[in-house]
């Protein structure tokens, strides 16, 4: 309504009677944490409007042009790469969760069992794909070029000793066609939703401290110190939300609240 403060001038002068309006861009749908934050923030005078995107490029564009105020959907490495590519003046203002990936198979019990020429599906979405390939490399199935980065793809595989046949597919499809392939790299979120258990079913799992893949909340650089936004980060990193994430996501997302320095210290 017209009685809301604009985010830029709000400072600390907002209240339930005179609320400030904040648009949060997220992707996907599993946002119980944001629903919860929304409720808590409303009591303090911060009105959240959640905008859902089904695409990974648009939320940053929207943030840059002021269509939304913050977004929370991406890993720090994707974020850094994106803002460089597009020359956007955005800054990460807090860390959120880590969603480790795993290698799943209907046919084999361990990585060693995967035969020569096996069919493996990976995510067609770019940063996830790089992450998938790093996972496969970590599992010793392939070798990557030295300069392999967070947006590198299939063309930067140095060696494929087992002659694996890697197919890019939509991540949500992976669990559905697992029986057709020898193994599939699946994002924890999709795995859990599809009824797989990352801890029990994965034959190989990503290291839980993979810093580049920690998710973040991002804002325009000029708003990075905005008390309203910082308050939202605080709310996200509260005990209450941490518990909620653990309960709701059953291991698909691990709350990972680290400092901004630590966040930016991954090898680029």
């Amino acid at each position, binding site marked *: 309504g017209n009685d809301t403060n604009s985010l830029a001038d709000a400072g600390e002068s907002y209240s339930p009677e005179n609320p400030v309006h904040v648009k949060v861009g997220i992707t996907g*749908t599993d946002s119980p944490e944001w629903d919860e934050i929304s409720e808590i923030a409303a009591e303090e005078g911060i009105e959240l409007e959640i*905008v*859902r*995107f089904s*695409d990974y490029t*648009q939320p940053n*564009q929207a943030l840059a*042009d002021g*269509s939304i105020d913050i977004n929370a959907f991406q890993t720090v490495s994707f974020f850094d790469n994106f803002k460089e590519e597009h020359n956007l003046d955005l800054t990460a203002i807090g860390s959120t969760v880590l969603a480790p990936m795993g290698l799943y198979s209907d046919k084999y019990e361990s990585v060693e069992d995967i035969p020569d020429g096996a069919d493996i599906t990976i995510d067609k979405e770019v940063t996830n794909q790089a992450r998938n390939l790093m996972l496969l490399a970590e599992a010793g199935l392939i070798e990557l070029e030295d300069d392999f980065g967070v947006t590198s793809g299939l063309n930067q595989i140095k060696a494929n000793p087992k002659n694996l046949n890697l197919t890019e597919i939509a991540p949500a499809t992976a669990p559905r066609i697992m029986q057709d392939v020898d193994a599939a790299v699946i994002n924890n979120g999709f795995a859990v939703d599809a009824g797989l258990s990352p801890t029990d079913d994965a034959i190989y799992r990503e290291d839980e401290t993979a810093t580049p893949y920690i998710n973040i909340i991002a804002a325009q650089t000029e708003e990075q110190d905005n008390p309203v936004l910082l308050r939202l980060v605080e709310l996200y990193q509260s005990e209450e939300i941490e518990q909620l994430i653990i309960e709701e996501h059953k291991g698909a997302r691990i709350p990972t609240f680290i400092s901004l320095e630590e966040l930016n210290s991954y090898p680029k």
Partner: protein
Amino acid sequence: MLDWLPEAIRPEITSDILTQALFETIYMVAWSLLFSALLGVVLGVILVVTRPRHIMENRFIYNLINPVINVLRSIPFIILLVAIIPITRFFVGTAYGTTAAIVPLVFYAGPYIARLIENSLLEIEPGIIEAADSMGASKWQIIFKFLVPEAMGSLILSMTTATIGLLGATAMAGAIGAGGIGEVAISYGYNRFDDGTMFITVLLLIIMVQGLQTIGNIASKKVRRR
């Protein structure tokens, strides 16, 4: 509100989300249909009347419009969504959200409707044009008082087909935060493996499509008189 559904197909989403999505879908389809129909009719009519030996034969215009439609129809919708963001911003002020989705939807459906209309209008017997011409009808009158009414049965069916196609395209407009039933089906039902949501959203889509097709069939039969 959705609790009455049997366990197996009870969606995890709330009926609020569903209602909102339904509203968004209707909003997007209605507006984009309006504009793309306008665009499509204009382009379709131009494609017909400017072709060789038709009433406003004009090689230049035909050879201009024809490939433009082809270009628009060549671009995958997801790319189109992004490619025309500057245009969207110009018209809507923003490039995200339900309203913004209308612009790419129009760019998607307009040229498609143009082709369907072209096909319908080409089927009109030349005798009708001769009759119109002999009465001293203007080009404008020939088109809108003769060709269009005579093709109406076919035009209605074409528009029905196009509207259903548009409904399908709104599902993809989720990429720019447009929401809608299709988007709920994909992000909750498909991405989150929620069969209940999948079921209810697809059911809603089926009801909408069935309703549109039924209306289209009845209307077309009424005017077609066969």
